[in-house]
């Protein structure tokens, strides 16, 4: 028999829109929220499709804007997608790359140029490569020499490593355009891991030696995520055919899970149900957000009305001691879901007509009486299709929407 678990968490309050900023250009990715000027308050920095990087403060006041001004030879310009030629497709990366103790802002463009700005939005250097830079740039000290390296892939199939001053350190060439953000694992030996449009997940050493490759069913756009699932550190990633994989750090598959839509966003991991194991949460273009156990079994899913392309955030938005899953959908809504889900009964014993018919033991009686499902706590409509979410504070989410608005969504008691 089953029993009802009394919920120990009381989700109070509501979520509401604090402010909206009009970027006056479509947006393609989430913002980054970092205190770049060390004044104790975070700045919100994002790129636009029209070729700008904008920095606003926590109250949505614009601090600076950097406009890309690249000239393209007229004949060559016909070969680019005119809607994307100046676009900044991915979230800017904010890290100190030159050791001046202040963060720099790094981003790539459709024209294949990587820009490095100082914290006032002034250009420090730029680097031109072949193909577009569509994924977010990674900054990591991969050779442990105390200085950061800059890593990114291009649509021309090049994986580029620069030093902090924009000088090329090495280029790894692979088969297939790279549109997924790379990740670095330092669990055992350092591994640089990235996916390609040809559906291969590659692992390279910092010296450029291939360690392993894993063939997915289709193109990979998402960034790998790492966590202790079945071994000390495993990797999870989805592909655009809807497959979601868990691999060990040698590229061997532990398990996979099949969804009905493309997976573009990185998975998030946390112990959502206090079982001392990590749960894996990700969105799919089958409109659902999934929560899987560390063994790849579905714990719950929640269906929105359109695609989910963003990475879910896991945070205690209402400060009740339990984690919530925050996810944006192309259906314009931001959803806050209970991290544990909820048990949904198919029928109510004592009230069900089937249960009261003597002598009837139907499949309803003998099968599972219900299922664990996603539980929506709050939902708020934003200005458009959500392309990215970033946590400003644990109760304050910055939402970027495709039509060009930045929404600040906050929890209030």
């Amino acid at each position, binding site marked *: 028999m089953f029993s009802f678990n009394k919920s120990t968490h009381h989700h109070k309050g509501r979520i509401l829109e604090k402010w909206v900023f009009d970027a006056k250009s479509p947006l393609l990715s989430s913002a980054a929220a970092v205190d770049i000027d060390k004044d104790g308050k975070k700045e919100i920095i994002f790129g636009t499709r029209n070729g700008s990087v904008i920095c606003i403060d926590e109250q949505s006041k614009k601090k600076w804007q950097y406009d890309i001004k690249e000239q393209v030879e*007229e*004949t*060559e310009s*016909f070969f*680019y997608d*005119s809607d994307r030629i100046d676009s900044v497709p991915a979230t800017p990366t904010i890290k100190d790359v030159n050791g001046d103790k202040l963060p720099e802002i790094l981003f790539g463009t459709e024209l294949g140029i990587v820009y490095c700005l100082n914290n006032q939005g002034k250009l420090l250097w730029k680097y031109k490569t*072949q*193909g*577009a830079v569509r994924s977010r740039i990674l900054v990591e000290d991969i050779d442990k020499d105390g200085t950061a390296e800059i890593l990114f892939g291009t649509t021309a199939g090049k994986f580029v490593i620069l030093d902090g001053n924009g000088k090329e350190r090495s280029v790894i060439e692979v088969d297939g*355009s790279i549109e997924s953000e790379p990740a670095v694992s330092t669990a055992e030996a350092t591994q640089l891991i990235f996916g390609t449009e040809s559906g291969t997940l590659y692992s390279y050493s910092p010296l450029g030696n291939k360690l392993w490759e894993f063939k997915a069913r289709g193109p990979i756009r998402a960034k790998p995520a790492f966590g202790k699932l079945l071994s000390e550190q495993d990797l999870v990633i989805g592909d655009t055919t809807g497959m979601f994989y868990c691999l060990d750090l040698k590229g061997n598959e532990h398990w996979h899970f099949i969804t009905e839509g493309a997976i573009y966003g990185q998975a998030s991991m946390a112990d959502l149900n206090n079982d001392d194991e990590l749960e894996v949460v990700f969105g799919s273009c089958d409109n659902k957000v999934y929560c899987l156990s560390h063994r790849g079994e579905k714990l719950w899913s929640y269906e929105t009305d359109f695609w989910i392309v963003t990475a879910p955030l896991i945070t205690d938005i209402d400060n009740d001691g339990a984690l919530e899953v925050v996810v944006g959908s192309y259906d314009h809504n931001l959803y806050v879901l209970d991290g544990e889900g909820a048990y949904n009964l198919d029928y109510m014993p004592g009230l069900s007509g089937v249960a009261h018919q003597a002598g009837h033991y139907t499949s309803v009686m003998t099968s599972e009486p219900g299922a664990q499902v996603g539980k929506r706590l709050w939902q708020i409509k934003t200005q458009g299709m959500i392309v990215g979410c970033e946590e400003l504070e644990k109760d304050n989410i910055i939402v970027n929407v495709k039509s060009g608005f930045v929404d600040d969504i906050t929890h209030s008691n």
Partner: protein
Amino acid sequence: MPETIVSDKKAISRVKLHIQGLDENIQGGVPEGHLTLLSGAAGTMKSSVCFNVLYHEAVAGKNGLYFSLEQSAESLVNHMVNMDYDMRRINLVIVKELSDLKTRMAELQDQTLGSLIIVDIGTIRKEIHDVNTDNNKSWLNVIKNVVKKIHVEAGCPLLVLDSLSALYVLSRFENPRIELFYIFEYLRDLRITSFLISEMPLDGSKYSEYEIEDFLSDGIITIRLTPFRRQVVREIAVVKMRATNCNNDIFSLEFRNGQFQALYGGQNPLL
């Protein structure tokens, strides 16, 4: 500009096919802004039928854009001249260099005649060797940008793309269903009346390469070759035409006295 809702069917503006006997059976023509697939095997006169539309519309003062991906502009024009199309009645513009486009469009501003603009992509491809087309640079973008530029700068409401099959060779489609959806939507958003030529096998087993084009297009016109005794006759039929009460009968397609004609709809031709 998206398609707008009309309150009266008479408010749907149409572009004539200029095929005598067929326009009368499709309420006068193809609805403006619609995408029509013209499907047929080699030798069915698909290019001629499409050129015929642009030519007659140019004679009436409208500008039209003919995108030839394989056949050279000279070959196409000579073929049409041989069919007695009088090019002096229109302003014929041939674009063979992308860098010329701006100048050629500026010249159109002073024109009193309607213009038929042929963009000869085959020749342009031969001229351009140094553009490395990787994932963010493609010939598909060239086509989209040129169409948009001419549509915006020259007020060009008509397009012929000859052909989709050549486009598939030129631009590698990794996910045709999604990529074709965006191309069709791109043309639809421009509100440009488009005729997309689809080269199909002789048996007429399908209308398009990936078959998704059939669903994405607003209309399908098919032309086939049918052996008749020791002759081959061309037959034309409107398979689908959105927002149109059309006669789906099969017609014989003939070109007589400088005029396309659709004859014997739904009937056997007299023996």
